């Protein structure tokens, strides 16, 4: 019995270590975001700001075009999420319901697209978008994000479609519903939660993305949040820590909230895709 107890204690100790490791950088970011400059300059920083302030947030908006960046990020992420889900859902349906060569090719592409370094894709994309005059524009970025979010969106959606029993659709067909009708009034409502989860996931993916935005957007007023965040760090790597932390915290909030809401569904979707494949 005693060994049992020590084992339990060891497990809790290990879990505690994990909790600390996972949480402390984020807590430090929070702490820094609310510290006044005087405390940030002090040689003995404390975990809890002695004199918490919102000044860093105000200063962050003064220093960089954060509002523009927020809007750009929002447009890019919402656009990418909506378009990705609109075009991925029908394809996922076909992949899930029929075993054709196309379904296999699509699955293969999902895997392969994960393996290629972006640099191999970004140069041609850069040239193509330049010719289409879509470089340095948020719509151009949305197009890239849609394709970039598609593999995982497809993966999740195929799982969700498979979870809808085909018998339901067959029953609707027997009752005389046409194919379109079946899709709209039987399948779609059942898929809705999965579609929403996928859209939210695509949103977060686009919201967080950095590399494509860095390459494709040049004008300061068109850049997205992650790119603007890097501007807080000066050429010599010296940064104004307070505003930087404040802006970084703001940039994270939407992703954290969305993830908290859909975490179960994402893991569920990953599993559904993985198990049934």
């Amino acid at each position: 019995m005693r060994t049992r107890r020590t084992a339990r204690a060891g497990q809790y100790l290990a879990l505690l270590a994990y909790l600390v490791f996972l949480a402390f950088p984020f807590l430090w970011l929070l702490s820094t975001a609310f510290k006044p400059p005087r405390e940030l300059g002090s040689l003995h920083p404390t975990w809890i700001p002695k004199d918490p302030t919102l000044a860093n947030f105000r200063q962050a908006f003064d220093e960089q075009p954060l509002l523009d960046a927020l809007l750009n990020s929002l447009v890019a992420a919402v656009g990418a999420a909506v378009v990705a889900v609109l075009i991925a859902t029908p394809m996922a349906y076909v992949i899930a319901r029929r075993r054709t060569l196309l379904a296999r090719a699509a699955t293969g592409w999902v895997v392969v697209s994960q393996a290629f370094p972006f640099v191999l894709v970004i140069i041609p994309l850069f040239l193509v978008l330049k010719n289409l005059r879509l470089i340095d524009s948020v719509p151009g970025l949305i197009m890239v994000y849609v394709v970039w979010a598609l593999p995982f969106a497809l993966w999740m959606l195929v799982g969700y479609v498979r979870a809808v029993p085909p018998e339901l659709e067959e029953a609707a067909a027997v009752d005389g519903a046409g194919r379109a009708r079946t899709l709209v009034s039987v399948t779609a409502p059942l898929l809705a939660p999965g579609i929403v989860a996928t859209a939210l996931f695509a949103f977060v993916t686009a919201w967080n993305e950095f590399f494509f935005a860095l390459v494709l957007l040049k004008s300061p007023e068109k850049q997205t949040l992650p790119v603007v965040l890097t501007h807080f760090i000066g050429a010599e790597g010296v940064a104004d820590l307070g505003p930087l932390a404040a802006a970084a915290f703001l940039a994270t909030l939407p992703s954290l909230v969305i993830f908290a809401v859909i975490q179960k569904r994402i893991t569920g979707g990953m599993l559904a895709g993985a198990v049934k494949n």
Partner: protein
Amino acid sequence: MTLATEPRRPPRPRPTKRAPGAGRGRRVLDHGAWFLVLPALLPILVLSVGPLLYGIALAFTDAQSGRTAPTQWIGTLNFQDLLHDTLFWESFRIGLLWAVGVTVPQFLLALGLALLLNQDLRLRWLARALAIIPWAMPEVVVGVMWRLVYNPDAGILNETLRDLGLGDGRDWLSGLATALPAVVVVGVWAGMPQTTVALLAGLQNTPRELHEAAAMDGAGAWRRFRTVTWPALRPVALAITALNFIWNFNSFALVYVLTNGGPGGRTRLPMLFAYEEAFRYGQFGYAAAMGCVMVAVISVLLALRLVGRLREGDEER
């Protein structure tokens, strides 16, 4: 004792239910289906498959940004240059070090956490909630955050070291010796949650009865892990490790924000190198060749590794 001879789980009923229409041979698609597929297929072809092929083709040209003279085919000249480009191979070496240095601890730590979360412990919900943070955060923010942690004066790491009486700490990210390890820690932190979730899913697929039976037979924890858990977990573990390795090798934003490749190129991952080549110096063709080499080497490495692992697996049976 029965377990030692029968470590494999009973065959799970495979989802053999075939989709309707599967029996009708390999007809590609009917009209209705094409209508459903095209909206996604076109962008994939135009913005993913196309650029990929275009990118590979570029590697055999002298394409440069902003050049007026037409681009020409130059055969394998880029690759020959690349062969002698010691800076690139140094960067490649760092990339491999980084990828292995991140992927292995990532896997081990994630496995530990997944095993813990699979137990009946309190505070599990908290761990699950906290695991969201690294997963959901933009990579740039992860980089920014750890810069704050590593900051020589205002950072919590040095302050903690000072409190513990372990010296004055140092400037982690600009020290020649500490930069790469410091960056690797961030990489591990950032990628742990996905790996944990995948492994946890795998764990929940392992047959509980076998576990209990093994415990009855007096098998210790390690023994149970090796004979019951690991065989069931191995496919998931292999898949997620391979993916992690690829993702880590191709990673960019984290290190770009943390060190931008410095100090003195000690953390210049191949992606950073290729990015600079392409978008600072405008050498599109040359950078594309780098991309090709990265894909090729990684594919070969992974193929060898996977084949090796699968062989191992066969022998164990």
